Structures are given as structure tokens and as C-alpha cells.
């Protein structure tokens, strides 16, 4: 039976036995529906829930005024508080004005339709530039600018004056909806003085501590469980206003309450990613050696100060990219805008760093009449310079960037495509093709303060092994990969090891899964914990056998004396010596995965359509715990990158409301019809920062692929200064650029 399914997750998910939050049955559960603002910005004059309360099947309806003491969102500024329900001012479209609880979603929606609201609209600002002018203030008397930051040092004017070439350009990293197939979910079940919270979530322990603090109760009284989770991509790592309302009401009413976000509200009020206007200057000498790079970021971070406000600093810190540019300076201004907040979305700050640099490298290559591959080769950080400290404050652990570039070119058949390009340029009837490259380096594991996790390994009397860690899977195969790693370390059959994660009652602590940290931190930690378990087993056996520890050895899941044949398996050892359990807080440093992506596109200049003919991705994530799982992540990530490059975006009406009324018929996720042939290749440069050597994986496609595609389109159209090509490269954008 075991080998029938390649992953442990597969059987239940393939037979309909998976359990997502919306699948859980709890007696007496109420469904929450939120009444949402249809305007982007305005003064709330009235919320009248009385008719809703009279609606059949409705258990109650509340506005902020009806819920005194309802706590606001955590982590904000007192002067710019984010209430869980709007109190007097609406600051983003879809912001919740009231909540209705019904015995099911149908009846709750009936009630919500009868809540009367009145809002006096105010002008809305949805771009950072508009908002930064402060002509419309989201908070009266306060600037919309929420954060200024920089990385690196300002570059002297003479550097630019003396450079042989200086390229200057502007780019937009458009807002994106992470769009997991399962939207956000929470089910709160109060029982006695305990509250059990079920949520599709990336960071259960953080959710627990935040909810406990908000509800003013001891952390131990809250249990957060993450059941099957239908994708996350960064969008399920926070506490949200709706979560606060649901938890608050569940406790107050003493009844289970859940919120299962639907797609319509998700497109309005789920966190979004990216959202930066960028200006760059890149200077080089006549040989194409980079002299200086300056990146200026204006980030639209949404309506309230929040963790996302500081997130554009990721872009600043990674501005150096994979090159030896001696002078790099990045500045960030985060500006409040009338949209739901910008928050990490797969890549989270690194796509925004890679894209402007890689696009500008292509412009520079054209200016210097250099092959773009050659320009990159002259500037990539050579392997012998690692660890490499960048001017923007990162210390890259390891890498062989030229190897990744060369493998990408070989895999693509770069010279062959250049020949094909020349052939087509000579044939007026042929559609132009373009080739685009993108060399990237990213950061995985997290920032200081989150570079650790709880890990544990426990041997049972029955011969099984339980692994525990603070990660939470939303499709990354943890239940398969982590037991396999622990089994390999212990030398036991993988079937004997099972994983427990995503349940705060079962774990002494945990950080979660985001920032490509689970394999790198939790994986290395589990390997470490398994090693400690072996050490402990040897010590116990040594005592039992009255031998020095050095006279014991470990192999095949058993301890034995170095001389002699007697061996004792874990089960026997536990029976003889008592429970054997390792609990550790494992800490590691961040790592820097890298690679090169290449794209070939064919453009129909008459219609502006882009057909991607080929994608090649060379990624280096150090040691891959399960290469097939890593490839699956890489492939899916590339398709999301394709989405940013060509299809996805959030257009706004003049009133500041997103023009997404037709849901997924307006916000276009890539379908199979859009998928080109994709070749994945790997180089392997283990991180020296853990014994395991794994770096993060899974975000590379969102980082490396978009600029490769955009560069290919610019190459096909032979655009010297492709500022008019701003993502998504929809047909109208490409047609205008080609004209």
C-alpha cells in the first residue's frame, strides 16, 4: 500500500478525504458574512443592522458601534489604527462595515443584504505617487508616507558623470492577487475556557499569540490547528480584521463561528503583493563593467500601517543582485493608499528587486552593443568571492552564478535561437522572436528574529518515530519530505516516521512556513534533532552496557557496541530506558538561492500578442530534500511568474475601486492554454550555513521568470528603451510599445 501513493498527503486528497476548514462539521456553527464598503474612501455615516437581525436564519448582526471593545488589528500605530470593523472612516474598498452571523452562508448573506449603510465618499488615491502628494490624506493631519528607508550609501554625482554609459529607466511592479484556490478560512470553536481555532494558515503559533493577546486571554487557552490548506503563497500568514471579528463573536456568543472567504470578497480584500513604482540608474564603463546602481522605490502599501509597510526594504536589501557592482544605493518610500494592504506574495520583495535590475541590464547591453549574456558574465559574482558582502548589506552565503548562466544558455540552445532570430529578421513575413535572460539571487529563511523554529524527534516504544516542527504546509509535502529526512538520518524505514505540525497543542512552539524557510530551517533542524536523538541513544546504551560512548556506534536505526554484534533498536531502547524525545529551538542563518531564467517569445506585433515558445529555469537551492517536490514547486512558481509577466493585474476605476467585478473572468490566472514548454535544470551549491545544506525553494519562478519574459519581448521588438513595456504585458501594452 505504501508505494501506491508517492506522497503521504495524496491518498486523502485524491479520495475526497482531505479536510480543509470549510469541510469541518461542528454542531451549532454559525457562518459569518461581512457587509463591505463599495467605496474606496469615505466617511461612514450610518450602519443599520436592524432589518438584518429580523431575517430568518440570522443569529445576529453587528456594526462597530454594536461591539464596543472589539480590538483593532495588532501591530499598527496608535494614531493610525486599523479597526476590525469600520468605525467612522472607510479607507479601502471592501472594508468590513458590519458582520452578520447566520445558520448557514445563505441566510447570513440574506441578512447582509438587508444591512443599510450610508457613506459619504471622499476622493481615493490608489498609486503611491498620487498618495505621496498628500492632497488626499487617509488619516487627517498625517502624511500618507508611512516609512522611508535605505540600503547602501548615496552615490556621488561624479560616478554618474564619469561613467561611459548610464541607463535610466522607470518600472512598475503591478499589484497582484496571490489567489490560492482556497481563499482564507477560520473556524473558532469555544469550549469551556478554551478556544480552538481552525484556519488554513502559514503561522499557527503567531496566530495563536496574536488572537490570545487580542482577546486578552492566556495563550494556553487558545489552540490553533491548521488542517489541509489549499495553497497560501504568502497570503495566509497574518491575522486579518475578519479573523478578529469571528474570534471575538465566537467567544462572546459561546458558539462556533466560521468565516470562509469567497472569491468575490477575496479579490476585493485579500492581501495583495508587489505594488511598486521604481526608478533606476545603472552606470557602466565602456567594457560593460558595472560601476553603480541606484534604485528608488515608491511602494503602495495599502490603507493602514502594517508589517507590509516595511516589506519594500526586502527589495532595497536585495538591490545589488548577483553582480559585483561596487556602489549600490536603494531608497524606499512606503505610502498609504486606498487599497487593501500589500503583503508578502510568493517572492515578496525579491521579484521587485530582480525585475528592474535585469530589465536594465538588457537596456545596457543594447546600449553597449554587447550580447546580454556576455554583459552578465562580466559582472556576475565569481564563486571564489563567497561569502560576498553586498553594498546593500547582505552577505551571500555561496553561489556559482556563472555556472547557472552557462547551463541556462546551453539548455535553451541560446546560439540556435539567436540564429533563428536573425533568420526571422531577414524575412518580412516571419513573426519576430526575442530571447530574454534574467539572473537572480534571492534570500530564503527569513530575517533576523525569524531564522529559527521549534523542531523535535521522539522515538516510541512501538518502533515508530514522531517528528515535530513549527512549520505549516499549504501544499509543500511536509508530511512526506520531513519524515523521509528524519528516517534517512536515523537509518530507519521512512514508513516508521510521521510528522506532526500545524497544531499548537501538539508543539511547544513554532514560527511557521513563509519566506522559503521550511526546508532550510525546519529541515536542517529536524536533521539536527535526529542527530541529537542518536547521541542520546548512544549515551543511554553506553550507560546500559557500561561502555564509553565512543565505544558505541549507530547504524540502521540501532545502537550497537563498536566491537561485537549486539544491536539495540530504538523501540527496545525506549522500553528499557524510558521516553526518548528531543525538543530543540534550531536557529540558522539566511541563505541566498540563485539561478538564471531564460525565455523565448514570439510576438505578433499587429495584435500585440505574446506567445512564449520556451522557458528555461536553472535554479540552485543547495541540497534538495526531495528533488521532485522542488521541481513541482519550481514549475508552479514559474507559472505564477508567467502570470505576473503577461496576465495578472488590478486595474482601478476612477473611484479607486478595483475593476474586478467579474471575478476570475477579470483577474486572469494562467490556464493550461498559456503554458509553454518549460525546462527545469538545477545546479547544486549547498549552503555552508547548515549541515543539511538546503536553501529555500519555491519562489524562484516568481523572481526569475517575469524579467526574462519581458526582456524577450523587448528583444523581439528591438526596443532600445522599453519603458512602455510595463507588466502585465497585455496585448494592448505590447502593441503600443511596438508601434
Amino acid at each position, binding site marked *: 500500500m505504501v508505494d501506491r501513493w508517492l506522497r503521504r498527503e495524496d491518498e486523502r486528497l485524491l479520495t475526497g478525504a482531505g479536510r480543509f476548514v470549510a469541510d469541518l462539521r461542528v454542531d451549532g456553527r454559525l457562518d459569518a458574512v461581512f457587509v463591505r464598503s463599495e467605496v474606496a474612501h469615505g466617511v461612514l455615516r450610518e450602519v443599520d443592522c436592524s432589518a438584518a437581525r429580523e431575517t430568518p436564519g440570522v443569529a445576529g448582526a453587528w456594526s462597530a458601534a454594536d461591539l464596543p471593545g472589539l480590538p483593532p488589528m495588532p501591530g499598527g500605530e496608535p494614531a493610525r489604527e486599523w479597526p476590525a470593523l469600520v468605525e467612522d472612516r472607510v479607507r479601502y474598498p471592501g472594508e468590513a462595515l458590519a458582520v452578520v452571523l447566520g445558520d448557514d452562508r445563505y441566510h447570513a448573506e440574506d441578512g447582509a443584504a438587508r444591512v443599510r449603510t450610508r457613506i459619504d465618499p471622499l476622493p481615493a488615491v490608489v498609486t503611491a505617487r498620487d498618495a505621496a502628494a498628500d492632497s488626499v490624506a487617509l488619516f487627517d493631519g498625517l502624511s500618507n508616507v508611512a516609512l522611508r528607508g535605505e540600503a547602501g550609501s548615496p552615490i556621488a554625482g561624479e560616478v554618474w558623470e564619469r561613467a561611459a554609459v548610464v541607463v535610466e529607466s522607470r518600472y512598475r511592479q503591478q499589484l497582484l492577487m496571490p489567489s490560492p484556490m482556497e481563499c482564507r478560512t477560520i473556524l473558532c470553536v469555544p469550549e469551556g475556557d478554551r478556544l480552538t481555532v481552525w484556519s488554513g494558515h502559514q503561522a499557527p503559533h503567531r496566530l495563536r499569540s496574536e488572537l490570545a493577546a487580542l482577546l486578552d486571554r492566556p495563550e494556553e487557552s487558545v489552540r490553533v490547528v491548521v488542517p489541509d490548506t489549499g495553497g497560501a503563497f504568502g497570503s495566509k500568514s497574518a491575522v486579518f480584521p475578519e479573523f478578529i471579528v469571528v474570534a471575538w463573536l465566537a467567544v462572546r456568543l459561546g458558539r462556533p463561528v466560521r468565516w470562509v472567504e469567497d472569491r468575490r470578497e477575496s479579490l476585493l480584500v485579500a492581501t495583495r503583493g508587489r505594488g511598486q513604482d521604481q526608478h533606476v540608474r545603472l552606470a557602466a564603463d565602456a567594457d560593460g563593467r558595472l560601476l553603480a546602481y541606484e534604485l528608488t522605490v515608491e511602494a503602495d502599501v495599502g490603507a493602514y500601517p502594517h508589517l507590509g509597510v516595511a516589506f519594500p526594504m526586502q527589495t532595497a536589501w536585495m538591490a545589488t543582485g548577483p553582480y559585483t557592482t561596487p556602489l549600490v544605493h536603494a531608497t524606499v518610500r512606503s505610502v498609504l493608499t486606498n487599497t487593501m494592504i500589500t503583503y508578502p506574495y510568493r517572492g515578496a520583495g525579491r521579484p521587485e528587486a530582480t525585475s528592474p535590475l535585469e530589465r536594465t541590464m538588457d537596456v545596457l547591453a543594447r546600449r553597449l552593443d554587447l550580447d546580454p549574456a556576455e554583459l552578465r558574465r562580466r559582472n556576475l559574482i565569481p564563486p571564489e568571492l563567497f561569502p560576498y558582502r553586498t553594498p546593500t548589506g547582505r552577505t551571500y552565503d555561496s553561489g556559482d552564478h556563472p555556472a547557472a548562466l552557462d547551463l541556462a544558455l546551453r539548455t535553451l540552445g541560446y546560439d540556435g535561437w539567436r540564429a533563428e532570430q536573425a533568420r526571422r529578421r531577414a524575412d518580412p513575413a516571419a513573426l519576430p522572436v526575442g530571447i530574454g535572460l534574467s539572473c537572480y539571487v534571492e534570500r530564503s529563511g527569513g530575517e533576523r528574529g525569524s531564522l529559527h523554529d521549534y523542531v523535535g524527534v521522539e522515538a516510541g516504544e512501538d518502533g515508530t518515530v514522531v517528528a515535530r516542527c513549527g512549520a505549516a504546509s499549504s501544499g509543500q509535502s511536509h508530511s512526506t519530505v520531513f519524515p523521509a529526512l528524519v528516517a534517512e538520518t536515523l537509518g530507519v524505514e521512512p514508513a516508521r516516521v510521521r510528522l506532526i505540525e500545524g497544531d499548537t497543542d501538539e508543539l511547544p512552539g513554532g514560527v511557521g512556513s513563509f519566506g522559503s524557510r521550511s526546508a532550510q530551517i525546519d529541515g536542517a533542524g529536524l536533521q539536527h534533532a535526529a542527530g541529537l536523538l542518536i547521541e542520546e541513544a548512544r549515551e543511554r546504551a553506553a550507560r546500559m552496557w557500561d561502555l564509553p560512548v565512543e565505544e558505541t556506534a549507530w547504524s540502521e536505526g540501532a545502537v550497537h557496541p563498536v566491537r561485537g554484534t549486539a544491536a539495540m533498536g530504538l523501540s527496545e531502547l525506549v522500553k528499557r530506558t524510558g521516553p526518548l524525545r528531543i525538543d530543540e529551538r534550531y536557529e540558522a542563518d539566511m541563505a541566498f538561492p540563485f539561478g538564471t531564467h531564460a525565455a523565448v517569445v514570439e510576438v505578433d506585433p499587429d495584435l500585440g500578442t505574446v506567445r512564449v515558445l520556451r522557458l528555461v529555469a536553472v535554479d540552485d537551492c543547495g541540497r534538495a530534500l526531495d528533488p521532485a517536490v522542488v521541481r513541482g514547486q519550481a514549475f508552479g512558481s514559474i507559472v505564477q511568474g508567467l502570470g505576473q509577466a503577461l496576465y495578472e493585474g488590478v486595474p482601478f476605476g476612477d473611484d479607486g475601486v478595483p475593476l474586478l467585478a467579474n471575478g476570475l473572468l477579470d483577474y486572469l490566472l494562467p*490556464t493550461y492554454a498559456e503554458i509553454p514548454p518549460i525546462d527545469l535544470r538545477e545546479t547544486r551549491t549547498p549552503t555552508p550555513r547548515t549541515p543539511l545544506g538546503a536553501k529555500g525553494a519555491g519562489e524562484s519562478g516568481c523572481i526569475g521568470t517575469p524579467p526574462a519574459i519581458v526582456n524577450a519581448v523587448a528583444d523581439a521588438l528591438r526596443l532600445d528603451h522599453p519603458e512602455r513595456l510595463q507588466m502585465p504585458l*497585455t496585448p494592448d501594452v505590447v502593441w503600443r510599445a511596438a508601434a
Partner: protein
Amino acid sequence: MKPSAFDYVAPRTVADAVDALAAGAQVLAGGQSLLLDMHLQRAHPALVADINHVPGLDELTASDGTLTVGALVRHQTFESPGAVPGPLGDLFARAVVTIAHPPIRARGTMAGSLAWAHPASEWCALAVALDAVVELRSTRGTREIPAGEYFLGPFQTAREPDELLTAVRYPLLAPDTGVAFTEHRRTGFSFAQVAVGAALTVRDGVITEARIGLANCADRPLRAHAAERTLIGAEPSSPAFTMAGEAASTEDAAPVPEPYADVDYRRHVIAVLVARTLREAAPV
């Protein structure tokens, strides 16, 4: 996104169905647009008449040069090349695969598309191009409206709320008619930014009949009369098709701006796509 409450009837005869409509019912045939609109809170019917059990409405017949498509004939029917005789069947088969995807085509109906009247609807554009006639029944009797007079705007038609769209009739196309259908859209799931259907008859080296239908080129489906006029009597050639494309774009179309397709871009695409469609339709 749940539908608001309604009463449900499942009439067994057309007479019962039109009685239900007289009582204010909205029609449920394939349901692929009605339920969508209910989920998106755009439709709140108090009464729904499910006509799926009315015998005879699923008939597709061709006789005396006329194709009659009953109200319950599903999109997918037209995927089979032999379902409709001659070039009309060929044209329908080319168009139908651009409509949504197989599970939607298994339920949705051609007549339902005409009742919904989405400006980007492929069937609606073909109906006006092909001089289809829409048959409407109510307790007041039966009437027929030419498709050219039936579409009044986005989701607006000449159908009165109490009228049941029972059938659509198309004249069959002559065997020597060349047909083509092309669509420009952003991904496999999006509505057409522009779609063009064309039927061309060439006799003795000149175009004797031209029919061009435009989807999403105005607030309603269009027949490109001005473009067709430039073709009659002309030899089928690239310059002639380009000229027809220009005429369709500047004289026939009245594009509405959308995100990712402003009026200038739309007009340009219409010109390009009409010319390409005609080139493909031209009998070799």
C-alpha cells in the same frame, strides 16, 4: 456569493412555462449565466422556471433551408461537425470551441446566450451576421424578431420579461460558402476582446455575398454592414480584406473601453481580425 431565495417551478409544457413567465419567472435552461449572475448578485429572481423538462425544446432540425435550434440545445451539440449541415455547421463548430470550456458547454445553451446578450457573446454575433430569427412565446402568442432588431445593448434585448425564447432559426449557408471564426482574448478563460465570424461566397472570381459578425465591438453584437459592402463585387484578395477590416473598424464598430482594451486598441484589433478572418474564410 449565494443566490438569494426564489421559488422554483419545473413546467412540463411550453404553455405552463409561459404561464410561469407571465407570473414573473426567470428562465433556467443551461443556467450557466443565470446562476453566475445570481452568484454575482446581479440577478435576484423571485421565481425560476426550469424548462429542462419541457419536451421538444431540445430539438435541432434542418429543413427547407432553415436550421431551427430549440431553447435547450446545448453548446456542445455544435462541436460535432455533422450536427448542422454544410458551412453553417462548420462555422458553428469553429465558434463553439471558443465558448468557455467543456463543462460549461455541456450545460449552457445557444438560446440562453441569445437571451443573456453579453456583448462578447460569439453566438449573438453570429446570429446578427446570419440573419437569424428569434422566436418568442408568451401567453399573448408567438412572435419572431430578426436578430438585427433583437439586441438593444449590454444584456438588453427586445424580449419582454414574460416571453420565452423558444427557438432560434438560421438560414442554412450555401454549400460553396467559406467560413471562419477568430477570437482575440487574453487567456483561455477570458471573454473575447474582439471576436469575428465571417461567411463569404465567391462566384466567378468575385465576392457575391459577405456576412461579418462582430462580438465585443460595441455595446451589442454587430453585423459589419459597411465592411460587407466594400467586399461585394470585389475579388477576394488581401487588399480587399484589409479595406473591409478598416471599414468594420471605423464605420461599423463602436467599441467601449475596457481595462486592457481602450477604444484605439479595440479599433485596431477589429481591423486586423476582420481582415484575417476574411482571409481564412475565402474559399480557395
